[in-house]
């Protein structure tokens, strides 16, 4: 498998790796501050993060070691495996009182819904590249992708994890719109989405989920609930002003006013401690990496590579946008992390694997498909 010819080394995208390392470094520093002082019992989170990064980069190296075309053949077995994991997590969660979304692996708690996102990207990219329709997909052509999306969607909805489930929908829409669908299909899908949305609001959403959305529109109704979280996040970011309060000197985070300050609200800590300058610096690198990722898609040698790279970038992009908009008070509280920056093993590993695939595509941009043989 490690038949790496020199061309692969020559095509290794150091900039892409450098950007990734920079982001992981900033995330690590911010995590250290956000979780300071460490809890007396158990391993400190920053140390855990070290191990996770180590594991993640091992996976990264593994994923660049073979041609991404192999993913075509791995796709469905992996898909089934992830579905199985989702089912296991679901039943474990049931027995733990409904709050559990993970499978305890001992060294980490695996949330199968995180790799499910990446899995869906790979699956859809594989499907759309294998089934190309020049004049746009009709509803009939979309049957299989819809089903492929709907199965994990339903499982994750049942956990219940509204944010992640919606993320699957966002991935599906991003990728499907990208490969071009027929105008008539848009109309039908739009109507269906509306109907499902209305039904979901009335019947499927749990009361607390509805409340989160309602709170967003009327924050004063719930000053200590989720409106409170958003407000505290805005206070944290806003009070950072131009240059921030300084590393480890954020009061909002250290005094626990910020909820979830090392996971979903990790960027609030960054904004508070490093201010506008630091935030813009971070965001520039972050979004430059995404643009670079789109460039990977643009230069990829085939449709699969392009769709795959695009899908991975979109997966990170939409999570980042939703997370940041929530932190900055544009969106209600949805449990979506900032990839690479929020603490969370499953999300970090998934994203690093995705970045590995991206590098893989980059490295093999000039190889013809036949190079595989």
């Amino acid at each position, binding site marked *: 498998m490690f038949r790496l010819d020199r061309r692969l080394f020559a095509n290794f995208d150091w900039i892409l790796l450098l950007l990734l390392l920079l982001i992981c470094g900033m995330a690590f520093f911010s995590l250290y501050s956000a979780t300071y002082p460490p809890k007396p019992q158990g391993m400190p989170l920053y140390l855990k993060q070290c191990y996770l990064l180590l594991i993640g980069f091992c996976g990264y190296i593994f994923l660049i070691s073979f041609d991404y075309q192999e993913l075509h053949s791995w796709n469905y077995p992996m898909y089934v495996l992830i579905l199985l994991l989702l089912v296991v997590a679901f039943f474990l969660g049931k027995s733990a009182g409904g709050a559990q979304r993970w499978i305890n692996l001992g060294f980490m708690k695996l949330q199968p819904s995180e790799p499910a996102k990446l899995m869906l990207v790979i699956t859809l990219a594989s499907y759309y590249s294998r089934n190309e329709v020049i004049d746009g997909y009709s509803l009939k052509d979309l049957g299989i992708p819809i089903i492929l999306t709907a199965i994990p969607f339903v499982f994750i909805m049942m956990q219940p994890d509204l944010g992640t489930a919606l993320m699957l929908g966002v991935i599906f829409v991003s990728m499907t719109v*990208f490969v*071009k669908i027929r105008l008539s299909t848009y109309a039908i899908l739009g109507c269906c989405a509306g109907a499902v949305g209305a039904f979901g609001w009335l019947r499927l959403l749990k009361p607390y989920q509805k409340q989160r959305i309602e709170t967003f529109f009327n924050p004063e109704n719930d000053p200590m609930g989720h409106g409170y979280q958003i407000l*505290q996040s805005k*206070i944290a*970011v806003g*009070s950072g*002003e131009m240059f921030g309060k300084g590393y480890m000197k954020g009061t909002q985070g250290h005094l626990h006013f910020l909820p979830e300050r090392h996971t979903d609200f990790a960027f609030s800590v960054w904004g508070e401690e490093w201010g506008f300058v630091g*935030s813009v610096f971070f965001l520039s690198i972050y979004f430059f990496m995404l643009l670079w990722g789109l460039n990977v898609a643009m230069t990829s040698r085939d*449709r699969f590579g392009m*769709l795959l790279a695009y899908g991975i970038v979109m997966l990170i992009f939409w999570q980042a946008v939703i997370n940041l908009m929530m932190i900055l008070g544009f969106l209600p509280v949805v449990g979506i992390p900032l990839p690479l920056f929020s603490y969370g093993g499953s999300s970090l590993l998934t994203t690093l694997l995705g970045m590995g695939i991206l590098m893989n595509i980059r490295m093999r941009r000039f190889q013809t498909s036949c190079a595989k043989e």
Partner: protein
Amino acid sequence: MARKIFEEIEEIPERDDDALDVLKRRLVVVSVIVMIFTALIIARLWYLQIDHGDDYKDLAFNNRVRIRQVAAPRGHILDRNGKEIVTNRPSFNVVLVREDSQNLEDVLKRLAGVLHEDTSELWKRIRDASGTAPHIPIVLKEDISWDTLAYLENHNQDFSGIRIAVVPVRIYHYGDLASHLIGYLGIINKKELAEADPEKYTGEDLIGKMGLEKLRENDLRGQKGSSSSEVNARGFEQKLLKNEEPTPGKEIRLTLDVDLQQVAESMMDQEDRAGAVVATEVNTGRVLVAASAPKIHLDDFTGGISTENWNALLANPKHPLINKVVQGQYPPGSTYKIVTALAALATGTVTESTIFNCPGHFQFGNRVYMCWRHSGHGAVDIRRAITESCDVYFYQAGIKMGVDTLADFARKLGLGQKTGIEMEHEKSGLIPTREWKLKQYKQKWQDGETVSVAIGQGYDLATPLQINMMTATVANGGKVFLPQIVEAVHESDGRSTDQFHPKLIRELTGMGKYMAIVREGLVGVVNGDRGTARAARIDGIAVAGKTGSAQVVKLAQYKGMKEEDIPYKYRDHAWFTCYAPADDPEIAVTVLVEHGLHGGSEAAPIAKAILMKYFETRLQAMAKEKEDRKNAKPAAPVTPGTAARP
């Protein structure tokens, strides 16, 4: 080598895949979308961090910093000899901090048992405070006993969220002593809060509501301290940022003498008397006693008086809410004869040898005015007229002078105007003149009215303090002092800021010899065989004074009725005002007993008791001297002849 690889790469032909080109164009669009979102998020950051950074910084500061105000210990109030009248003691309140509380229902059940309270009462207090932030303590019970405190402290693990708050409360060492003068504290109300300095007062502060607690609020209050601590989101204090110790309130030392005040109040409390007792230093204006009866119970007022108690006070026919020392206005009655006598002498209307005949009544116009002694006093001069309080003499003197002359002297002696003492709602009394009547009633003054006014009836009204000041002025030979009750105000570090100085308001000149004549008459009142206040006589100390009975109503139906049959509220007020020692006056005492009928029998003994206390050491010394002399000459027989000399 690398170059070669590159060249090799360049050689690979571009795939002419149309579909891929379409996707590439879309990727450009997607890149633009990514950039738009990036710009949007950065714009939002600008809005939050740069445009509104200051606002959020304030919010973050308020989030993390809790400023707790520490009440300053209120200043003490002492008497002239340094005896503590009002100080502070710590009171232990049981409070609930909701954010720390668990199993509230069980805790309250247990707590109710310990406090001997009903659970519903505790719930009511919690409900009343709903809407406040959960870290703000709710007071469940004030001022618990030491035993309860010890129990709660020892079992605090059973009472989650329950804490003990230490609050200073006023302690009244002499109960309700001088309650009208001292006053009480209460929670600041909206109106007071609106007028108060917002830097100094907050919504739950105590403020003086009455008496000196109110008038000297600024001295007694002190300066609040504050401690700023950093708190976390759960409200737990993390570290102290700043601590400013409170400055205790200033200590006020009164001119009042607790011992004398106690004598006065206990005398008034006997038989549930209503009225006022005032004693002042004749040569300084220091107030030694200022008692108004009935007293109010200060404890009823702490923490807000109940409607029930308040209504009872309002309905009480003895008007306990009125500080009768300065707010009670009574006809001065015969005590006013001091004014009439002085005026008559000073204007030359009478001389010390002028004699009027008193047949027991005086006819003026077509009306007959009675002397209190219906059988008459016969021929009286001014001294006897004062001593025996002959009405007819003063009717005639008054008529000769006219009401305006009388009023002029009355005002010079301090009547008909506020004395300016540091007490609330002082009344000015009333000294009528022709002009006053014309203005007030649009009627001409009737000379017959002068007859009544001359003996302190009719329109005349005076407060006990005014009568006392008049007495003091006569006693000291014409000096009108400002009556004062504050001897000194001490800063908490012991420096004195406001030391007592006698304030002379005015001095009546050229009246010395007339006052001397009046004083001789006043000595007779107490010490003469026919004096009206023989009950105030003290062996060894010459007391001089004047009695008075102030008619409340002039109703024919009570004429000739036995005094004890007249309903309480229609009985005459009893006055006695005096000074001692007569030859070198030090103290002036004035007693008014509402509906007490006779000054001589009702009011004079109260004044005597105060004087006895005031002169206690001197009287004891005299008694001892006497004893010593007796012991030195045990055999010396007392010859009956010398003792019986008339």
